[in-house]
């Protein structure tokens, strides 16, 4: 229903993407699924990884928030360390989401989350503890997973919807 808004947002974000992002639409698909690649800034833990993010817009977008999932695995307190890659992001919660919020701000928020994890609001309790209490070990493991999973181009799942 809100194709106009989505088209406009996609045009803006793909032409002048926020720093570190590459945004594209999967071939032969609607504008409701976006393929996003994020490379965090140098001198941060997750650099030089390239992280695939699948952004899905619900049919009642922008009244409901987009759904964001990492397709590249990462060792992060706020992202499930599994193949689901669910993200905990305040801006995406129904009670915080406003219809005037733009996807560009969501992307900013994701980038900030990679630069600075939020261990007080964790999805992975264990990783959050480690991040808080043993930063060196966390850093090492996070780097190891970057090397293991995030140096190739991200592979997006074939979309079924």
């Amino acid at each position: 229903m809100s194709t106009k808004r989505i088209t406009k947002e996609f045009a803006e974000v793909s032409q002048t993407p926020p720093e570190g992002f590459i945004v594209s639409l999967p071939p032969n698909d609607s504008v409701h699924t976006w393929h996003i690649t994020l490379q965090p800034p140098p001198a941060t833990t997750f650099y030089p990884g390239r992280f695939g993010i699948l952004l899905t817009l619900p049919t009642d977008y922008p009244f409901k928030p987009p759904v964001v999932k990492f397709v590249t695995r990462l060792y992060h307190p706020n992202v499930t360390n599994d193949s689901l890659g669910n993200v905990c992001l305040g801006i995406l919660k129904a009670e915080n989401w406003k219809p005037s919020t733009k996807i560009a701000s969501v992307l900013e928020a994701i980038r900030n989350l990679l630069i600075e994890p939020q261990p007080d609001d964790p999805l992975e309790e264990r990783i959050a503890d480690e991040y808080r209490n043993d930063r060196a070990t966390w850093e090492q493991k996070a780097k190891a997973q970057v090397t293991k999973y995030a140096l190739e181009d991200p592979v997006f799942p074939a979309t079924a919807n």
Partner: protein
Amino acid sequence: MDSEEEYMSPISTDDDEIMQDDSGDELSGPDDFDEDDFDEPDPDFGLSAKDMDKKKTAAHAVSFKVLEPSDIRRQQDDMMNDVNLILDLTKEDAAIMLRYFRWNKERLLEDYMDRPEKVLEAAGLNSSSSSQPKLQAVPGFVCDICCEDEEGLQTFAMKCGHRYCVNCYRQYLTQKIQDEGESARIQCPSDGCGRILDSRSLDLLVTPELTDRYNELLNRTYVEDKDTFKWCPAPDCPNAIECGVKKKDLDKIVPTVECLCGNRFCFGCANPDHQPAPCDLVKRWLKKCADDSETANWISAHTKECPKCSSTIEKNGGCNHMTCRKCKYEFCWMCMGLWSEHGTSWYNCNRYEEKSGAEARDAQTRSRTSLERYLHYYNRYANHEQSAKLDKDIAQKTEKKMVQLQTTSGMSWIEVQYLNSASQALQTCRQTLKWTYAFAFYLAKTNLTEIFEDNQKDLEMAVENLSEMFEKPINELSDPKLKVDIMDKTSYCNKRRIILLEDTAENLAKAKWTFNADLMNGSTLLLNKH
């Protein structure tokens, strides 16, 4: 009705002195509650002094008030009017402020006097002006939500100035109200704007059926925002109960209330009447009975697993040489070792004497004893629950009996009411008895438990007697002597129930009960152990 003004004076959320029990004074324990409360601006106890003189002296009773939907609305209106008069805010703004302050009028007034702008902003009412909200077509407007820009598009903005097309506004509100059940704290759709939608703007924007839902939700927040209010949990009952008992006092008192619809429930946990057991015990007990932990207990007491395929095996006789039906594994029931390695000690496993074997045996015995103890109390608890159901069936027949009696014996309506009273007494007493068993399950044996058990026995006997009389056929019921007996027994049952409840409530208030530490393990429970 009492003066609303006095009645509504809000209770400061951090008053902690309330309900403090002076356990030094043996006899006036229950009265202490009320005395302390008199100094508080607590509306309930102000009421209790006038209306509830009788209940005031009882340790097992609490004072409370039933509020019907019209009462709830009137209370809100009165408070809005007060704030409207004192602070010179519109009624809509006053309502928003009150909701923001969770209906604590005193705090609202105080904070507002101190820093009006800050409070207004916090409540989402910044940049105040008194203009009426209206729809507008703005030339050159592009809606930031849907990106529509056609000429003459109707738009709306609150005082914050964030303007969106009316369709987007409507869709936003519908989703908040219908899907998310939001009402009092719907913010402006603009990212980062905390301004809250007032009801006048809402009237302008949404269809009448949504307004009804909105008002219903608003009404709900009034009750849900206040700790002293609770909805009656009976299905479809629109009433709320007001009661001053605080959450932290639930280990000292069991606040049972009764709605106008007849539903008796606990104000503390909203479960059906569970006197004399305190809320926390009830929660434990219900959990214990509900989850299959006791089935698991039985299984651990009676069965073992095949060491090879893990099938559960119950040994119902015979020797220790077990052959698993499923995988044909042969093992010793005692030491769970492979039978072929047993050497010559056939049928007399000497590994049984080893430490691990002994420990296993102890664990099994403990499990069995604790199970038996549980079953003792559970069976009695369940029995009263079941009997109460049966009594209820009988009660329904009582209605008919009462009509029959009126025709056959020429008794008047008022003269057959004793059957009704008897039936109600049976229900209430069984409910109490039921919970005495859950209570007793957690109770550690002290001098007090003997008195408790005596009271329990007396009440139980009285109830069973009455129950028996009550089941008599209609022709015997009309016998005047039986009628007098039933009336006597009814009042005796009620009296015994009160005695039991008073005893438990007084000791609970003084933290004199000792609860079984084993059964309360791992608890955050506040029940006092002396």
